[in-house]
């Protein structure tokens, strides 16, 4: 399967997000504080919504 170029920035942003999530889980376990996970779902909401909208638009454009 050939990866379309137009998805590259979105995939990179998702990898970026997952990398921070991995660190947030480590810190949450070490400090026994779930705040770091909650923050990961709430604070970057504009970022996450924008990625989802961009993905939908790109997929629609392709079809």
């Amino acid at each position, binding site marked *: 399967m050939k990866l379309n170029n137009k998805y*590259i*920035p979105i995939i990179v942003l998702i990898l*970026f997000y997952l990398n*921070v999530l991995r660190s947030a889980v480590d*810190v949450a*376990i070490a400090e026994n504080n779930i705040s770091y996970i909650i923050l990961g779902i709430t*604070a970057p909401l504009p*970022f996450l919504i924008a990625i989802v*909208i961009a993905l939908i*638009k790109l997929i629609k454009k392709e079809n």
Partner: protein
Amino acid sequence: MKLEYDDKFLIIVTLIFIPVVLISTILHHLFPEVLQVPKVLGPYFIEPMWLDLVIMDVITVILAIIVIYHGFKTQGKYKTTCFLYGAIIFAGLEEVHWILLGRYNLSPFETYIFTRGGLWFLEIPIYTCLGWFMLAWCCNYVSEVILPNKNYIFHAFVAGILAVSLDLWIDPVMVNLGSASIYPNSAGLWVWLSDPKDTFSVFSIPFFNFLGWFLVITLFLILYGHVLNDNKIEIHGKTKSALIFFGLIPVFIGITTGILYLASLCITPYLAGVDLIPIILL
């Protein structure tokens, strides 16, 4: 084999950049006393430490190469080269200037330091510089996709907001990453040195960090969109356009710094010591 202008441009800029990274890295690791690098243990997750540093740099470079590839395919080598090195220089110099001002007590308040890094660009780890490049590029792309009919200034603002919304989470996590380190008493990936009583904080992180993030991403993208649009490149030519672009970076860094100082003067007297939603209370 005859190289085209864009290839030569990429090679020349890279050849200028590499010695700066090599000298910075040697200074940071072998002669830390030159720039008075504080001895703070950063977070490490595997042994030996150098392997941890190498893995982080290699992963970041691979991700950056993927984004550069996207740039080559969509905007061409010339514009991607300008974006890559422009983002590194803009964000790098902005951060270095704050770090060194704080370190040498030239700023009204203490700032921050990075605790770990393999390769360095001045006093900034390379993974941070490349992180700025990738975030600026990708957030700008997302804003162009979701709002295709708006101009580059609007896209820059949206990209700035997207990046800041992500950093509202990144900063609290990375600053506390030391607690997950394999070594006891490790600090986070970077350390804020300012007294929380002297600053206005959000999620226990100085507010000016988030304002700085927004300004760096937005102003850099405005500079890029303004100087390096296809019409202007055609009028000025590629060499002159690159000189204008890189020449204006210090001006835009000055604007960013000015806005941050002005905001500090306006906000700090009223909100110093306030921590809007401390991370511990979430």
